[in-house]
């Protein structure tokens, strides 16, 4: 049975950029984007797209991608389209800036209500910038639908989904009634690459852009104004960084010396 699926994808600073390039502006409590490192779709969200695509491969269906932000780079947010998603809706406005889990989940849920028809909603387990891990669950709660978090496998049949949920010492198989929201983890496996055909098709597609008013949201509900958590301070932990490098003529010797050093330092 073909399913209507929605995937929420966030544009974030590349989380795999070298740690040394990470800088904060303490006066604004904001991260300074590293020059020359383009943003990406948050990695777990790409895997959420993959989870939806696997279902579409099996039984058909439609995948709508939803991204909320400001100044969204079309090349970045279109990536799910080039992987095989069907439609892209952008909630894009300056007023969305500075939101927290609460205001973001509320805006996404409101947009999903406007889309109207859905069997499955996918999110990443957490966005790779603020690592909040709340928005997916929040959307489910606002929509009044069940959620299963941290999934590594999702199958859908007969109005139900069977989800493998990762737990610390293994996994659980959980059955959930549809419509449902699933958050996806890396254990799902790698997201597919965009094909050339996919990239060309995506280039032709125009995203739909919704402003806050298009989904009936007041300025007080979104962005900084809609926050429930107050950010007091953003800072970088100080690292001492004094590693003693053990050197020797050969690697084997260095290994031996390292062991002796650990004994000397009473570590072993």
């Amino acid at each position: 049975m073909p399913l209507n699926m929605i995937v929420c994808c966030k544009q974030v600073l590349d989380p795999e950029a070298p740690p040394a390039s990470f800088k904060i502006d303490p006066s604004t409590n904001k991260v300074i984007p590293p020059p020359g490192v383009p943003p990406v779709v948050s990695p777990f969200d790409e895997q959420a797209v993959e989870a939806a695509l696997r279902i579409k491969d099996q039984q058909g269906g439609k995948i709508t991608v939803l991204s909320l932000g400001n100044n969204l780079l079309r090349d970045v947010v279109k990536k799910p389209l080039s992987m095989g998603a069907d439609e892209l809706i952008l909630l894009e406005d300056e007023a969305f800036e500075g939101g927290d889990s609460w205001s973001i989940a509320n805006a996404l849920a409101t947009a999903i209500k406007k889309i109207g028809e859905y069997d499955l909603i996918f999110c990443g387990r957490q966005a790779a910038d603020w690592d909040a891990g709340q928005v997916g669950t929040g959307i489910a709660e606002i929509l009044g639908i069940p959620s299963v978090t941290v999934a590594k496998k999702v199958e859908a049949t007969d109005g139900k989904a069977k989800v493998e949920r990762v737990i610390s010492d293994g996994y659980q198989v959980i059955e959930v009634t549809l419509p449902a929201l699933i958050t996806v983890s890396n254990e799902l496996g790698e997201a597919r690459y965009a094909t050339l055909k996919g990239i060309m098709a995506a280039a032709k597609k125009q995203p739909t852009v919704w402003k806050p008013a298009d989904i009936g949201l007041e300025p007080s509900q979104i962005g900084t104004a809609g926050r429930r958590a107050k950010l007091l301070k953003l800072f970088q932990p100080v690292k001492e960084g004094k590693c003693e490098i053990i050197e020797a003529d050969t690697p084997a010797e260095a290994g031996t010396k390292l062991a002796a050093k650990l004994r000397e330092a009473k570590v072993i």
Partner: protein
Amino acid sequence: MAENKGIMVYGEIVDGKISSITTELLGCGRKLADELKEDLSCILVGDKLGDAPKQTVAYGADKVYTAEDPLLKEYQTDSYVAVMEKAAKDLSPKIILFGQTSVGRDLAPRLAFRLGASLSMDCMELSIDPGTKLLHQTRSVYGGNARATFTSEIFPQMATVRQKAMSPLAPDESRKGEITPIKVELDPAKIRTKVLETVKEEVVGVKLEDAQAIVAGGRGIGGPDGFKQLEDLAKVLKGAVGASRPPCDNKWVPDTMQIGLTGKIVTPELYIAVGLSGASQHLAGCSGAKNIIAINKDPEANIYKEARFGVVGDWKQILPAFTEKVKELLAG
């Protein structure tokens, strides 16, 4: 509505005992409660709680609320949120703390959104602002590259706490606490999930979370065979083997071996990082280790910023001699 008062810890039970994160939460909750001069309570949810309520008192709780019902045998979002929603509304705590565990990660946000409250996940530090008496919640953000401190003026203030970030109190069996069952009325028709099966990874030897020595391998190990060599070293050290994410993603080792932000949090005495670069998301899981040792062929690798001792070079040429010498030293 009643004034919000007191700190409530959501307790978890593993194998009939309160879990280590629960003791950590009680330790941290005790401090916050004393600062506010309010009570520390613990809520336990399950089908058979046994001795767990008494244990939470020994670890610092003034009051224990118990919700026992056969429908609560296994964690399920809908049933557990229903219990916690009722508890939060009836008991109006000022602060609710959860562990950053499989359950806490799922339950806390759902409850926060239901209550209209705000929540900080994976906190590493909690304190009471001396002026406003509000809870300050410091958590790791941007994969561990930064920290952020949040607060909220909406009650209850909610947080999940990273494992091993807080210290438990020494248990005191003579402590007195009040144990109160709370009534739960669950409608099975409103539980929209069903647990069909639980599959657990068998662990031979020491569990990662408990190990005092960990040998962790990264992408540089190159495949499952390399991990056998790490196992040899771990055996000599009576420790366990862990991994960064790529070896798990590549199926060289089970997913349950992943250490880091979205894997396990470990705090051993000795952490030997082999062929892993030390990405912030990995360090989030191991930076609490007493002594980090790095073996990497790239002298610029980020892991050297966290390590106490290191060797630069190909691990394949370094590790055998290292293991041999460690064996010799530990035997002598």
